[in-house]
């Protein structure tokens, strides 16, 4: 394996949790809901994932627990924002604070507990493609899941009727309701999907990337996933591009630190956050206000009775 391949491999590893979480949030936002609680759902996924994996000794059980934890968190958010029409921004913040706290309580007795990561699966034939093969097709199952999510969500949103209805709910809840669609139910499923993805992304952090539990280990990745959705202009393929860009920067700064650049490590660590800001500004400039997100994003909907 060449150095470049090795670097690309780590880039993909670092990007995958961002990508999975961003794809989930993208679907949520397409339905017209802004869930700022990605960080909270993600870290609950990370905590519950490793606790379940250690308790049962099964990585699969850990993943399942993480996904369920993300969905449970999302359900709280849905109850507030759909059931009670609460402010989505505030409810998302609450979800993050709650998740950061609860994950600390859940993981308290597991701090530093090690377990073997989840192994890689080589896809026969495809992995033998020169250069791309080992990078893309000798990966852990999460990476394959992220590929599938991008393709699946893209297909779902543009090619299926359910995807059309979901987008309609995000464009104008009132119009969708007038046509007889159950806007709140559709948004509920979208939010649950977002939670499942965030939980899965969290599981990747604690089961593969690090693989142990530390409090606050998401370190803002949930927020970066939110930024990626904006960067991607709500397009799944562009979200993949964004996620790999951010993952690349993370890895680059690690390598730069390792290579002994005479730059304070704190500055290097701040790079992903600074780049996020720069990218948000650049994308808004490029877009010049036009073609922004779904027209109904963040607006609560209460049907008349």
């Amino acid at each position, binding site marked *: 394996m060449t150095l470049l391949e090795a670097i690309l491999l780590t880039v993909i590893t670092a990007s995958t949790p961002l990508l999975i979480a961003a794809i989930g949030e993208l679907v949520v936002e397409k339905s017209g809901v802004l869930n700022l609680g990605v960080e909270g759902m993600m870290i609950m996924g990370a905590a519950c994932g490793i606790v379940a994996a250690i308790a049962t000794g099964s990585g699969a059980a850990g993943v399942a627990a993480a996904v369920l934890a993300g969905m449970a968190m999302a359900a709280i958010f849905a109850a507030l924002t759909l059931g009670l029409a609460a402010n989505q921004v505030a409810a998302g913040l609450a979800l993050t604070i709650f998740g950061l706290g609860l994950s600390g309580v859940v993981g308290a007795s597991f701090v530093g507990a090690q377990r073997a990561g989840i192994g890689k699966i080589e896809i026969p034939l495809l992995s033998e493609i020169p250069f791309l093969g080992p990078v893309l097709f000798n990966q852990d199952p999460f990476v394959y899941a992220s590929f599938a999510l991008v393709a699946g969500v893209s297909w779902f949103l543009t090619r299926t009727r359910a995807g059309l209805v979901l987008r*309609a709910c995000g464009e104008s809840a009132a119009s969708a309701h007038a046509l007889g669609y159950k806007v709140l139910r559709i948004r509920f499923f979208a939010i649950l999907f977002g939670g499942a993805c965030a939980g899965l992304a969290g599981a990747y952090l604690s089961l593969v990337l690090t693989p142990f539990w530390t409090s606050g280990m998401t370190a803002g990745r949930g927020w970066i996933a939110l930024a990626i959705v904006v960067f991607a202009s709500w397009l799944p393929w562009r979200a993949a591009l964004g996620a790999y860009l951010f993952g690349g920067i993370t890895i680059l700064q690690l390598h730069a630190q390792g290579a002994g650049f005479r730059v304070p490590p704190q500055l290097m660590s701040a790079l992903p956050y600074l780049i996020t800001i720069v990218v948000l500004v650049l994308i808004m400039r490029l877009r010049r206000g036009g073609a922004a997100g*779904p027209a109904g994003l963040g607006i609560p909907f209460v049907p008349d009775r």
Partner: protein
Amino acid sequence: MPASPPLVQAQQIVKRFGALAANDHVDLTVAAGEIHALLGENGAGKSTLVKMLYGLLQPDAGRILWQGAPVVLHGPREARRLGIGMVFQHFSLFEAMTVAENVALALDGDAPLPQVAERLAETSRAYGLPLDPRREVWQLSVGERQRVEIVRCLMQDPRLLILDEPTSVLTPQEAEGLFATLAKIRAEGRAVLYISHKLEEVRRICEAATILRHGKVVARCDPRAESAASLARMMVGSTVLGVKHEPTAPRGKVRLAVAGLSLPPAEAHGVALRDVSLALHGGEVLGIAGVAGNGQDELFAALSGERLAPRAEAVLLDGRPVGRQGINARRRLGAAFVPEERLGHAAAPRFPLSENALLSGHAAGEFLAGGLVRRGRLLGYVDEVTRVFDLRKGSRDPEARALSGGNLQKFTVGREILRNPDVLVVAQPTWGVDAGAARRIRQALLDLAAEGAAVLAISQDLDELLEIADRIAVMFHGRLSAPLPVQGLTQESLGLLMGGSGFPAEDAA
């Protein structure tokens, strides 16, 4: 053999919203093959009733019979399955989606988009309603949007088509086209439930009418056998008086002038203003007619100063260039403004009336002392508006959203008129308000002009403009026609202008 049962019957329908009975034991019967008018003032309960027929709302009591058999409609999907289609007043379209996607969303079943587009083309050909399935809805004119709604209903082969105020957004010529379509639909044996408050057209095209007032059925009649005046009496419950107005040629000096104003669209889907000029004289009411979405909102924003003009000289108030000055500077120079949207633009829904008086009145200064807000004075001002304009409200200073549409409109017009403005720019002065309030507001505008002030009224309601204006200009694709004296103008001649005739050819596409 007994006669076949009527197509749809609503029996003793009751629907309450809180304390308000929007429908109070309403009966309605529509036979197959008839165009049936549902008449009533704003707030009489027409929309509530048809929403129940379309399954969007569930009645609290009473039942609906479809071809003689009782049905419970849990949602629009079930209504569509029976054969009920609905065209909404505020369209239920998705701006950022294509026509084909909008149609597909209203069809039950899982037809792929290309197939939907094909069937769409077929139906629109059959009814003479041309549509391009690939265009996005925000690019369409209001008339085209209505066409999308009608075509997608027709594609489901409905037995009953419900239209909610369909002509309020159309030019008279476009309305004629709609009537021809409706005649064709009736000839196919379908029924139409036609909601309107335009009595002349109801008399022309409907063969039966049910009239609602305050949620109750007050009359059933054959509108062809009634006069517009008698229908109006049934709707309102008393004789409706028009306002008295003798249109005159402009005599006073020019108070507000616009010269060669061009403005790019404010947002992605907006309209540009193109070389707009006008001169508004003291003592006159100048009407601006036009189909919605032809630049009226943009003109209002440019006149009020919510958007600044590129040059100061583009807008002149009493000869002073104010194009680069904001709305409060213009208010201080004696101008006042009433925007179209009552809740959210003219007034903050959750703020009490006193603070809504401060909203447009703070620049004048008498509501502030040493940096602090003078609450007592604001309350006094609310009392004054209440007295002069006869506001009906539950408490001395309720939140704006607690008022009915008519009362809130009287407030937003009244709070400006009581400041004795020299220039008043008002958009849709009586849109969606009851006849009593509409008459009071129109009279107040005329009185203001009679005292020498200049009034500019932007309205989609041609009847209203012909009633109160001295001269009328027409907006089309961001351009403004020269004003014409109201004597000699007719609905038809205005309608042609609204449809673009007389405007530069490149716009008429």
